[in-house]
């Protein structure tokens, strides 16, 4: 179950970014914030390159999928900004976007032939429901004149 520890670490780190991103976009535009986000990724990768010597000679499929991961993730972030800028209510857009793991589950089962137990299937559904509910910000109380 070593995977779970790393998955929870990712969850915590990405969870913190929810706050730091908000602190950033409270002060600068989402575009500038995204630029510095990407630059930080480059800086981190430069450190990784120095600290852990890269080993080349990987299968083409692996390289293509890794690079595609960056493209898909980056364009996904860009598309989510566009959704918010196109008039979508943040609570609805973010809740809707929270459905993305559902697609990963479907693709992984269909293309990678992954099998889920009944409990895991229920867990995936509950996780998606939880992510949607967490993204629904409470409505501020109406102030009657």
């Amino acid at each position, binding site marked *: 179950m070593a995977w779970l520890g790393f998955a*929870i*670490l990712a969850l915590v780190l990405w969870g*913190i970014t929810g706050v730091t991103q908000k602190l950033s976009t409270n002060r600068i535009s989402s*575009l500038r914030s995204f630029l510095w986000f990407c630059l*930080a990724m480059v800086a981190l990768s430069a450190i*990784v390159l120095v600290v852990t010597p890269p080993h080349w000679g990987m299968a083409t499929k692996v390289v293509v999928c890794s690079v595609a991961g960056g493209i898909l993730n980056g364009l996904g972030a860009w598309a989510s900004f566009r959704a918010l800028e196109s008039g979508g209510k943040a609570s609805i857009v973010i809740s809707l976007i929270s459905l993305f793991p559902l*697609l990963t589950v479907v693709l992984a089962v269909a293309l990678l032939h992954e099998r889920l137990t009944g409990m895991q299937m229920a867990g995936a559904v509950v*996780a998606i429901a939880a992510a949607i*509910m967490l993204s*629904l910000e409470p409505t501020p109380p109406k102030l009657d004149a």
Partner: protein
Amino acid sequence: MGEASTSRRLPLWLGWSLVTILLWGTWGLVSKIASDGVDAYMNQLLFTVGIAPLLIFVSWKVSKGIPGENRKGRGRGVFWAFLTGILGGLGNMAYFQAMVKGGKASVVTPVTALFPMVTVLLALLFLKERLGRVQWIGLGLAFVAIYLLNA
């Protein structure tokens, strides 16, 4: 014209949201395929290569100027954005490592997608934001989901 016809068929925001689901959902799949042949560090390096064209495009957009952007507080805003990138990248590596360690894409991705539970808790503690009833239920369900996915 494009805007009007789009709004009759599919609102623009809905279209972009669906594109996001498609892109991020597929990212989970390709990350698993990549993790079967490369370690988390190398995966992050190649991930950054993938992000580079977007970085160039965004740099170009920013260099043209951002109308209405306030200069006040820019330094702090940049600091938080940079920290977001560092933490996001470290999160990526943990996500890749979870898959390298044998986690299935169909299980790891729903677990990590629960990251708003941490955001919500931190916002509650440090930003003094209030949680709605639905968010509290979501928080409880997030723990149930982790238990079930780990079963």
